[in-house]
């Protein structure tokens, strides 16, 4: 008699080990990476390489210190994925030491000090991002604009990107350094809209260079690439639909609500969904299996909470985008949500808990 040792749910092929899941997520980020490289130059690609190298070195060093098997844990690709996600979230032009600092903090403090993969209460990549954003606000907010609307009027070349990242300056025809990098960078659409300073929405879209169709389209295509990657993960059942759908619909509904109330000052749901990091956050960050909720009902609350927080921080907070802070805040709440969203075992009645003690109680 064949005794299959498969855990429920019996819907997946067997043998889906951690490494396979991590590899699939890495694969799913490729469209986004390609579009970011296509639109904004080689910066992101170089950051990814720096980040992955740093992550592997840090992970190996800490595992050695902790007396764990180094190759076993390096082969689960989790460190590579953390580094990749953080690098994708960084502006393309940040200096190399900034990426190294962020990744080292992610791996050493946010992941390994808590006990390694599976024990980290917070998303390591977003901890690294939050650290960098709080510590180095200037380089962390120098986003590239679509080349049609920037002063340089071209995508930064590969050699220039390397020079900028490792030496902090480029000589030659397009000479820039940390101070004159404005030739390539501009506010992101979200940032420009947030700081429109009394302009009506229509005026802002007509006058601000960062809100021109070319720039908005660039971010739209990045979001579409991550959406495609996310759908690929859904198809493979690496992630479930609950978190991304709840996140995106909560963001769309709350943005739509304020847009209907005050359409001359608020941005539309479409704008909120397609010009920031909403898709990247919804499919790749919020779905981290370690730090998010585990029950399906819990994932709905968790995702919706992130969506609402994203809108609140984007609109009334101090930072232009809010994926990192929203996800970290909801990571705090994830165990609490899971406690109240436990699925009922088949055949059991609804639990009597909290204040819901009905009249039939003695």
């Amino acid at each position: 008699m064949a005794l299959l040792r498969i855990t429920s749910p019996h819907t997946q092929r067997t043998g889906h080990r951690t490494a396979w899941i991590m590899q699939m997520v890495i694969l799913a980020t490729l469209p986004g990476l390609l579009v970011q490289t296509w639109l904004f130059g080689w910066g992101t690609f170089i950051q990814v390489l720096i980040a992955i190298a740093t992550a592997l070195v840090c992970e190996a060093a800490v595992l050695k210190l902790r007396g764990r098997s180094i190759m076993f844990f390096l082969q689960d690709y989790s460190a590579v994925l953390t580094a990749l996600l953080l690098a994708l979230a960084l502006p393309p032009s940040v200096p190399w030491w900034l990426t190294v600092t962020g990744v080292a903090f992610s791996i050493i403090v946010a992941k390994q000090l808590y006990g390694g993969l599976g024990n980290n209460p917070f998303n390591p990549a977003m901890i690294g991002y939050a650290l960098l954003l709080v510590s180095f606000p200037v380089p962390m907010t120098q986003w590239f604009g679509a080349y049609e609307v920037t002063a340089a009027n071209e995508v930064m070349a590969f050699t220039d990107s390397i020079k900028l990242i490792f030496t902090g300056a480029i000589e030659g025809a397009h000479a820039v350094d940390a101070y004159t990098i404005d030739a390539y960078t501009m506010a992101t659409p979200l940032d420009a809209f947030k700081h429109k300073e009394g302009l009506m929405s229509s005026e802002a879209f007509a006058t601000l260079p960062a809100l021109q169709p070319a720039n908005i389209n660039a971010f739209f295509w990045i979001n579409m690439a991550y959406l495609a990657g996310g759908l690929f993960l859904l198809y493979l059942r690496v992630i479930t639909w609950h978190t991304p759908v709840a996140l995106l619909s909560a963001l769309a509904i709350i943005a739509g609500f304020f847009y209907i109330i005050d359409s001359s000052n608020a941005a539309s749901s479409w704008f909120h969904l397609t010009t920031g990091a909403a898709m990247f956050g919804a499919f790749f960050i919020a779905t981290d299996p370690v730090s998010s909720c585990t029950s399906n009902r819990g994932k709905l609350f968790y995702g919706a909470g992130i969506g609402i927080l994203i809108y609140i921080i984007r609109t009334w907070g101090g930072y232009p985008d809010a994926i990192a802070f929203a996800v970290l805040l909801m990571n705090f709440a994830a165990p609490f949500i899971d406690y109240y969203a436990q699925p009922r075992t088949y055949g059991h009645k609804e639990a009597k808990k909290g204040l819901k003690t009905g009249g039939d109680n003695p």
Partner: protein
Amino acid sequence: MSTSAENTVIESPEDSAITTTQTDNKPATDYAEILYNGIWKNNPALVQLLGLCPLLAVTSTVVNAIGLGLATLIVLVGANAAVSLIRNHVTEAVRLPAFVMIIASFVTSIELIMQAYTYELYQILGIFIPLIVTNCAILGRADAYAARNPLLPSIVDGFMMGMGFMIVLILLGAMRELVGQGTLFTDMSLLFGDMASNWKITVFSDYPDVLFAILPPGAFIGLGFLIATKNYWDQKEKARLDKLKANQEKVSRRVRVTG
């Protein structure tokens, strides 16, 4: 002054870390024990985790840390001395208000002194000087130690606890200043006058300020690392002693068997 106060010793919540030295025949107070307790074993910042609010808030540079550490040290010594003196004359019901009054008076004096002599530092430390009143380490020592011990041990205990607190403050201040700004001992002239104006050491030149270390999160993480280091050392020491003990036991057992 140093009479044994057996019948008036106030029953207070048990404090397992403190071994009261009072017995009927009054053995000599173990000052080495007080020192070890204050600096290491029962360190207010690393073990009791008391007074974290000022500890985390003002340790962004070494000079701030020394300023607040000194102020807390003086208040601790003064409060312990005064509480020890009145320990036989206040009833249990009013002891805490009495202690708080004493502490508040000392803090007010310190605040006025700092305002007179180190005005810039007084402005930098701001609300955290008056807040020394609420530092649980001070009230804790008054209630747990000074209220049932003679004057001299109480003063020594206050001094050692204050030193333990200040050492942690300075370590944390140095860590945060080094990581945050790449310097050490900036602006020491605020506390030590003109002679300290060139004490500043620039460890890393051309250093980007790491705001994270200067802001409160850096303090939490820095303190976490300090506590972890202390626990690591303690664990290693305990493992060593256990091993030593185990070896000794083995030897004695063999003797018993053969004998």
